C-alpha cells in the first residue's frame, strides 16, 4: 500500500522498525499533495522546506538509536487560525493577508516539541465562521468524496486534507461543530474535546467561550495519540483546566458491554436525511449487538440551542474581531482621510459577508437596550441546555446522535440562505454550549457520501468516548473506505 494511505500509528511503527524514514514519509505526503491538491484545495500555505528539515532531524535521531515520540516524524498540518511562528497565518481572510505571528500557538509548540513534521496551513471558513468552507476568501476546498460537494466547515481544509490522504492528521477548531460536521461530511474522525482540555493560546478567537481545538484523524487510535500530544493545562490560557490528563490510548479497548447510551429523540426530527436516519439505526443496532444498552431519551431544550448560539457566538466575535482595524497589522485602507473612515473602510473591505453578518448580529445583541432581551437570555438558555445534557449524562455514559442531519451538500447550494446553512450545525452546537466533548466517526453512507455518528460524553470524559468509538470502528469498516477524488 502507498505510504500516504497509512495512519499515523502505522507510520510510527514503520519508523521505529526503520522500514521507512521520516523523509520518505514526508516526501510521500508532499507528492500526494502535489497530485491531488489542485482538486482538493485544502492548503493555504505549504511549508515544504520546514517539513523536510524536521523530517531529516527525526531521521538523524532514529539513526542515533534514540526513542521517538508516537507522532514524531509524522507529517501533519494545521488550520490557518492557529498562530505559527514565522509562518503566515490568515484565517482565510483578506483582512489578514500578511500576518506572520511572532509566536506559536501552544498546540503548535507542543507538536513541534514532539517532532511532528509540519506540512502547512489549511483552508477554512473566514475566521471559522461557516459550515462549508465556502466563506474562505482565498479558495474553495472540495469534498474528496465528491468534488462537487462541500467538505463542511469551518475546518474544511483540516478534514479534506486527511480524507484525501494529504496529511496523516490535522488540527481543527470547533466552535459550533467546525471539526465534527466536516469530519462527518468527509468520512474521517474528528473530536471536539471538553472546553478547557486544550489550550486556546494562539488560536485566533472566534467565540472564546465556545472555541476548542481538536484532532482530525484517519481512525480513533490516531485521535487518542493526537489528543495525548495536545491536551493539558497551559498557564497562558486562564480557561484551560488545571488538572492532569490520562493516557488516552488506554481507552483503545474493544469493549462496550454494559455501556449506557442515550439517544435524544430531538436530534432525529425534521430535516433529517432518510439515509442518515438509516445509518443511525444501524449504528444503534451495532452497539446493542456489542452489548451496550441503548435507550431513547428527550432533551426538550435542544431546539433553543441554535438561536442561543447565534446570539452568544456573534456577541463574542463582535468583540474578538474588533482588533482587526488596520492600525497594528493586517490589511489597511490607505485612502481614508481620518481614523473613523480608515476603520470602516478597512473592515468593510477586509471582512467577507458572513463575518460582517455575525459582527453586526453580535454588536446588536450586546447593545444597550437589547442586552437583556438577547445576550442575557441566550446565556440563560445556554445554562438550561448544559444542565439538561449533564442531567442526561448522569444516567447515561454517552449520548448518540447524528453529527449532521444530512451528508455533504453541493457547492453553492446554501450560500444564499444563511439560515439553512446554520441548520447543518444543529446537532453539534448544543455540545459547544454545554462545553462537553464529542466525537464524529464514520458510520455509513448516503448517496455515496459519508455519514457521521456523534458520541457526546461527560466533561473530561474523552476516554469513554474514545472507547465506544474505537469499539465501533473495530467492528465496522467505514473508516477504511477511501474517497475517490472524483466529481459526482
Amino acid at each position: 500500500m502507498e505510504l500516504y494511505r497509512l495512519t499515523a500509528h502505522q507510520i510510527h511503527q514503520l519508523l521505529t522498525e526503520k522500514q521507512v524514514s521520516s523523509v520518505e514519509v514526508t516526501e510521500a505526503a508532499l507528492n500526494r499533495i502535489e497530485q491531488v491538491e489542485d482538486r482538493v484545495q485544502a492548503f493555504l500555505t505549504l511549508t515544504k522546506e520546514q517539513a523536510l528539515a524536521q523530517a531529516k532531524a527525526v531521521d538523524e535521531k532514529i539513526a542515533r538509536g534514540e526513542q521517538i515520540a508516537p507522532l514524531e516524524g509524522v507529517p501533519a498540518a494545521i488550520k490557518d487560525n492557529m498562530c505559527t511562528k514565522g509562518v503566515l497565518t490568515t484565517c482565510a481572510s483578506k483582512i489578514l493577508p500578511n500576518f506572520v505571528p511572532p509566536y506559536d500557538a501552544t498546540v503548535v509548540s507542543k507538536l513541534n516539541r514532539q517532532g511532528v513534521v509540519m506540512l502547512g496551513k489549511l483552508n477554512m471558513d473566514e475566521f471559522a465562521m461557516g459550515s462549508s468552507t465556502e466563506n474562505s476568501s482565498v479558495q474553495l476546498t472540495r469534498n474528496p468524496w465528491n468534488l462537487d460537494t462541500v467538505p463542511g466547515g469551518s475546518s474544511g481544509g483540516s478534514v479534506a486534507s486527511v480524507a484525501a490522504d494529504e496529511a496523516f492528521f490535522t488540527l481543527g477548531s470547533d466552535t459550533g461543530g467546525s471539526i465534527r460536521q466536516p469530519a462527518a461530511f468527509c468520512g474521517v474522525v474528528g473530536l471536539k474535546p471538553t472546553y478547557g482540555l486544550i489550550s486556546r493560546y494562539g488560536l485566533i478567537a472566534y467565540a472564546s467561550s465556545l472555541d476548542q481545538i481538536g484532532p482530525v484523524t484517519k481512525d480513533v487510535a490516531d485521535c487518542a495519540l493526537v489528543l495525548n500530544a495536545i491536551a493539558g493545562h497551559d498557564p497562558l490560557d486562564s480557561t484551560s483546566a488545571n488538572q492532569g490528563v490520562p493516557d488516552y490510548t488506554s481507552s483503545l479497548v474493544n469493549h462496550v458491554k454494559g455501556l449506557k447510551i442515550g439517544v435524544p429523540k430531538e436530534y432525529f426530527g425534521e430535516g433529517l436525511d432518510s439515509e442518515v436516519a438509516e445509518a443511525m439505526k444501524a449504528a444503534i443496532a451495532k452497539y446493542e449487538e456489542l452489548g451496550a444498552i441503548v435507550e431513547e431519551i428527550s432533551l426538550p431544550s435542544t431546539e433553543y440551542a441554535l438561536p442561543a448560539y447565534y446570539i452568544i457566538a456573534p456577541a463574542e466575535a463582535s468583540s474578538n474581531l474588533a482588533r482587526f482595524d488596520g492600525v497594528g497589522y493586517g490589511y489597511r485602507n490607505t485612502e481614508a482621510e481620518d481614523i473613523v473612515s480608515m476603520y470602516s473602510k478597512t473592515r468593510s473591505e477586509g471582512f467577507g459577508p458572513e463575518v460582517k453578518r455575525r459582527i453586526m448580529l453580535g454588536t446588536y445583541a450586546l447593545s444597550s437596550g437589547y442586552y437583556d432581551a438577547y445576550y442575557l437570555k441566550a446565556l440563560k438558555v445556554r445554562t438550561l441546555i448544559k444542565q439538561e445534557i449533564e442531567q442526561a449524562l448522569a444516567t447515561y455514559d454517552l449520548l448518540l446522535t447524528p453529527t449532521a442531519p444530512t451528508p455533504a451538500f453541493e457547492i453553492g447550494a446554501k450560500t444564499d440562505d444563511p439560515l439553512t446553512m446554520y441548520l447543518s450545525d444543529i446537532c453539534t452546537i448544543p455540545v459547544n454550549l454545554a462545553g462537553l466533548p464529542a466525537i464524529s466517526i464514520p458510520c455509513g453512507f448516503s448517496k455515496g457520501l459519508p455519514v457521521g455518528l456523534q458520541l457526546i460524553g461527560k466533561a473530561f470524559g474523552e476516554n469513554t468516548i474514545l472507547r465506544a468509538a474505537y469499539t465501533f470502528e473495530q467492528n465496522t469498516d467505514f473508516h477504511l473506505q477511501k474517497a475517490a477524488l472524483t466529481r459526482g
Partner: protein
Amino acid sequence: MRDYQITIGLEVHVELKTNSKIFCGCSTAFGSRQNTNVCPVCLGMPGVLPVLNKKVVEYALKAGLALNCEIAAFSKFDRKNYYYPDLPKNFQTSQYDLPIAKDGFLEILVDGQVKRIGITRIHMEEDAGKLVHQGDDIAASYSSYVDLNRTGVPLIEIVSEPDLSSGEDVKAYLEKLKAILQYTEISDCKMEEGSLRCDVNLSLKEKGAAQLGTRAEIKNMNSFKAVQRAIEHEIERQSDILAGGGQVIQETRSWDENRGITVSMRSKEEAHDYRYFPEPDLAPMVIDNEWVERVRKTLPEMPDARKKRLVEEHGLPAYDAGVITSSKALSDYFDAVLVKYQDAKTTSNWVMGELLRLLNANAMEVEEVKVKPEQLAGLLILLEKGTVSGKIAKTVFEEMFATGAGADQIVKEKGLVQISDEGAIAAIVQQVIDANPQSVADFISGKEQAVGFLVGQVMKETKGKANPGVVNKLLKEKLDSID
C-alpha cells in the same frame, strides 16, 4: 451669582505600581523607550489570551480595605468595547457589574469639619496606550504615533459618591485619597506622570431643590491645581447658564489648561455604547475571607490613625500631625527621627520647617533626601546639648542636606562647636562693650534694643558660635554693673 448648591462626584484612576502589567509579564516602568515594554499579549495580537496578575487583585484589595469598602466574594472582568488607536484590542478589559470593592468611605477635614465622602466602587482595569500627535494639537496633527508601553498597566478606578460640594472638598478628598493610596504603597499617585488621573462630575441645583441638576463630566486635568481650576470654571459656567434661564446639557467636557476653560467633547447622544459583556478569556474570581484577612494584615497604619497617635502620644498640635501624616514617607521619616531623639515638637518644627523648605526649594521628594533620620536626630541632640546654636544648626543642616554628611562631622570639621564657656565669652563681651560706648550709653538711657546690637556684635566676633543664652546673660550682667 445666585446661590446654587454644588454636587460633585469624582472618578479617580490610579496606576498600580506592580512590576509587571495586568495581563502579561511586560514591565510597567515609566519613561522607557516607546514600544519596548510590549509583547504579543499587550499588543493585542490575534490569538493571544490574558493571564491575570494576582498582585493586581491584591493591590485592589488593599485599596478597598484602606477605603473601608465591602470586598466582593465573587468578582469578574468584563469587556468595554470601543475603538481607539491606543487600544490595540479595541476593547478594554475592565469590571462592570461586579467590581472587586464597593460601599466604602474616606473622611476629609474642611473648615474644621470632618466630612465623610462615600466611595461607590473600586474596580480593576487595564490602561490604554498613548498617542503622540505630530503638529500643534490633535485637530491640526498630520500624523499620529502609537506608544503601547502603557497598554496593560494595571489601574484601579475609584468612584466617589456625589458627596463633594466645593473645590475645597475636592482638594481635601484628592489629598486624602493620595495619602491613603501612598500609605498602602500600591501607587506612586503622581499626577504629572499620569499615575493618578481624575474625572469630575459636577452639577448645580437650586438650594433646597429635591432633584440633582444635570451634570457635566470634565476630563483631562493633569494636576490637583488643574482640577481646582476646572471646577471653579465649571461652577461659573453652569451657574451663568442657569442664572440666564438656560439648561445645562448632559455632556462630557474637556479641560483646556492653556485657555483655562472647559470645552464640549461629546454630548449624551454621542456617548459610547460600550456593550459591556463578561470577559470570556478570564475565569471569574472567588475572593475568600482568608485572603482578604491576609491582605488586611499587611495594611500599614493609615493617615488618620497615625495623626491621632502623633497628637495623643507625642503631644503634637493637630496641624503639625496633619502635615506630617499627609505623606507616608514624611511620616515614616518623622517616626524614625523620634527613635533616636524624643522631643516630638522640636522634631516636627525641623521636619516641617527646614526639611520641607529644602525639599521644596530643590524640587525633591522625601524619599530622595540624603539626610538620614538618625542624622537629623544627631543634629537635634547637638542642639539640645548646646553643642551648636540654633542658627549654626540650620547651617549645619543645609550642609547635611547637600552632602549627606553627619552633623558631628560637619561641626567638628568646620569648628562650629558652640562656645558656652563663660570666661571666654565674658572677655569678648567686655571687648564689645569697650568698642561700642554709644550703644552702651543708649542702653543706659533706656533704649533696651541696644542690647540686640551688642549681642549681634558678640556673635559676629565669635562667628556665631557663642551660646546666645550665655551672651545675653553676661551682657545683661555687665551692662547692669555699669549702670
